[in-house]
């Protein structure tokens, strides 16, 4: 009953805001673009490159508005929401260009507003306001929690933790769990320990060697100012089948805190940010999963499917955008395509497409457009062919970050190296065949010397400056992404 009331109230708030924004949009056309992705996938770099492309221009033949010269200028403007940090575009760009290092990853939501002046096809001068919202993909994985309760979540999380390769990582937490009786009276200290161990397990799963993606609740990894609060101090329990939680027991306490997490963390995020997006980019780092192994790939697939399931997809209609705005275009950007020779880009796209296939069908059925593009927002490599003993390898040339290793070699972060990371499989379906044994060996099963794929961390390229000092970032297919995301609004 109270649940129904909350939902109705929530929906009423959403509708009221949608109505206000619709009226605003009539005078001042606005596009809200959401950028998300797991941490380390390259959200910040993508966004920096996107803003730089719009403000500084460059070589973007496929992005029609820019290539045909209709886009007069784009400038940064004060953002509409005063309670959200600004996306620090200038600082990230400086890190890329001056210090030649990748910008620090964002740990929370941030926002940036761009005002684009352009000339429409029929030569009228127009303005489009682009609000870009950047938020961690981990928060998205919280959204499915809204429709589950503590008992179900607890069982699912525990089952997941027992699977290979998570079992090894989760052993300390599960050992502690065995000492806890859900029916016993609540003991704050034991609960805190359990939550800490659980968080440590989630954090360890994110390590390069495992590269797991399905790690809700997301705020455990990025607590922000909620760290240590009761809403973040809970963990799954080994629950008995059936039965009720006795008053004052650990079980009842965990249950209450789980609900608190939903109402303090998840629901406000959904209302304030997520439900208002028009377009969405999901930045996916499939190559990290290839480094780690087939389990990581499957985990990524599960995470992407549940992300897509949260989007309110559908075609944009006048009535719809008044009362119930939907996400009309979703782009899955398989980033770091510059770590592959271009002959493998299609395979990368096919693999990511395969991961989102089922969910994408649902979105397309509802009338949204879904696209998958293998891209590199900032291209750190060149391509080269290596001929060795009559064999020729399609390689990429870049500067590996200091400390990266491949085979017996350790790189110093200065030398240029031609890398052959391994051939991506031609048949994407074979990777996801559950019955088959491991399709390939990754870091989660074997050593770095034996792994089938090695995608090293590379340093950003040497950046050129234009005549007037503006920065030109090399890229791969960023123009196609821009055209897909906003080409139709710049007609």
């Amino acid at each position, binding site marked *: 009953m109270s649940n129904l009331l909350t939902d109705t109230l929530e929906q009423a708030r959403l509708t009221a805001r949608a109505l206000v924004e619709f009226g605003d949009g009539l005078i001042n056309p606005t596009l809200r673009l959401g950028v998300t992705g797991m941490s380390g996938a390259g959200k910040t770099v993508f966004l920096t490159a996107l803003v730089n492309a719009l403000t500084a221009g460059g070589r*973007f033949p*496929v992005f029609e508005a820019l290539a045909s010269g209709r886009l007069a200028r784009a400038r940064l403007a004060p953002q509409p929401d005063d309670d959200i940090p600004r996306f620090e575009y200038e600082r990230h760009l400086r890190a890329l260009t001056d210090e030649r290092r990748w910008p620090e990853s964002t740990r929370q939501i941030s926002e940036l507003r761009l005002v684009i002046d352009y000339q429409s096809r029929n030569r009228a001068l127009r303005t489009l306001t682009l609000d870009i919202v950047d938020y961690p993909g981990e928060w998205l994985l919280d959204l499915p929690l809204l429709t589950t309760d503590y008992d179900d979540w607890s069982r699912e999380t525990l089952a997941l933790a027992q699977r290979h390769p998570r079992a090894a990582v989760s052993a300390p937490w599960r050992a502690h769990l065995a000492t806890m009786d859900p029916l016993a009276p609540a003991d704050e200290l034991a609960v805190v320990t359990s939550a800490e161990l659980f968080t440590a397990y989630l954090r360890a799963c994110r390590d390069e060697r495992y590269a797991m993606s399905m790690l809700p609740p997301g705020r455990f990894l990025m607590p922000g100012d909620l760290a240590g609060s009761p809403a973040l101090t809970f963990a799954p329990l080994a629950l008995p089948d059936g039965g009720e939680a006795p008053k004052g027991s650990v079980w009842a306490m965990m249950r209450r805190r789980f609900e608190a997490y939903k109402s303090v963390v998840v629901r406000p995020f959904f209302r304030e940010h997520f439900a208002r997006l028009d377009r969405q980019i999901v930045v996916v780092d499939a190559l990290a999963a290839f480094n780690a192994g087939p389990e990581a790939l499957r985990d990524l697939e599960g995470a992407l499917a549940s992300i897509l399931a949260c989007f309110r997809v559908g075609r944009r209609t006048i009535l719809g955008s008044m009362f119930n705005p939907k996400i009309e275009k979703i782009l899955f950007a398989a980033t770091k395509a510059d770590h592959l020779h271009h002959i493998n880009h299609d395979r990368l*796209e096919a693999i990511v497409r395969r991961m989102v296939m089922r969910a994408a069908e649902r979105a397309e059925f509802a009338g949204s457009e879904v696209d998958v593009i293998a891209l590199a927002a900032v291209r750190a490599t*060149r391509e080269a*062919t290596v001929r060795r003993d009559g064999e020729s390898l399609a*390689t990429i040339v870049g500067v590996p970050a200091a400390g990266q290793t491949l085979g017996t070699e350790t790189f110093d972060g200065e030398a240029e190296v031609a890398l052959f990371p391994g*051939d991506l499989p031609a048949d994407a379906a074979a990777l996801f065949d559950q019955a088959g044994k491991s399709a390939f060996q990754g870091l989660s099963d074997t050593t770095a010397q034996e792994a*089938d794929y090695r995608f090293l961390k590379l340093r950003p390229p040497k950046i050129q400056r234009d005549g007037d000092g503006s920065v030109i970032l090399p890229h791969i297919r960023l123009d196609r992404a821009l*055209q897909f995301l906003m080409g139709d609004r710049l007609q």
Partner: protein
Amino acid sequence: MTTGPSPRRPAAFRLDDPDVTVSAEDQATGRNRSGTTILLAPEPEPSLPVATAFLPPPRRFRWGRMFWIALGGLVSLAIGLGVAQLIESLFARSASLGWLGAGLAALTALALVVVIGREVRSLMKLAAVESLRERAAAVIASDDRDAGRAVLRDLLKLFHNAPAMARSRTNLEAHLDEIIDGADLIRLAERELMSPLDREARRLVSAAAKRVSVVTAVSPRAAVDMLFVLISAAQMIRRLAQLYGARPGTLGLIRLIRLVISHLAVTGSMAVGDSLLQQVVGQGLAARLSARLGEGVLNGLLTARLGLAAIDMTRPMPFVALPRPALSDLAGDLLRRSEDPAATGKPARPDEDTDRPPA
């Protein structure tokens, strides 16, 4: 589980390694088979802005067009009034005459509607072919897979009832779902669909050119061959359009001829490939031949050139994978054809035996 041959292991090659030779791909020189060579692919200059296309000037309201439309309306009103009055007076004379008149008027109207309908359809088809060509060119530039697929589907629709192309159609349909980048898809379609059509188009143009050259050479009056050239050029353009999937009616043909002529003007009429013509004229061949025969060859060449422009404008795809037919392909035929008059006693072969003075 292994897929295909044993997977190649990841590897790294330092560029500053003394055992490694590094060179740019386009100047790969000596091949030392023993050592390792790294060929760097050429990079596009990232800061180079793409040439910006300028928008056409804003379209102003066209009063001239308005004038013709209004005038046309008035004239048709006058005709309608005249017909109505005619039928009225026919009825005044006798009822049966009146009915006959009314029936004829109705038939006229019906035929007019059908004719207009056909013209409109043919114009639409022509526009469709044009937009298909533009889209194909855009896909070549953007390499967008979905757009490429859409173009391919429309192409298949355009040729869905050409029986001779059943095989290429099925081939292409099989490729629709494979992972091929957009530009490659267009190239594939061009190779599959266009090569038989191109052959036929070449034949059509060269036949028309031959006809024109022969008729000009033998016709008694300049007026006659002018008329002939006009008619056969129009016929050639219509046939080419039919071949490439558009069925132009009268209005369509007029529009097409306008397009072809403006294309001819844009591409620079005499600049390219007319070394052949220069050769013919410059070496004084025409002077050596009778004046009429020279004129015939010239007219034939011009027709061939018109045919090439017409191919450009009627073909639903740009020339990307296949070579654009050159004037020499067609004119070669034409000059060989000049043997026919040669058989009547005039040395018309521009071949080596007449062309080159004996050493």
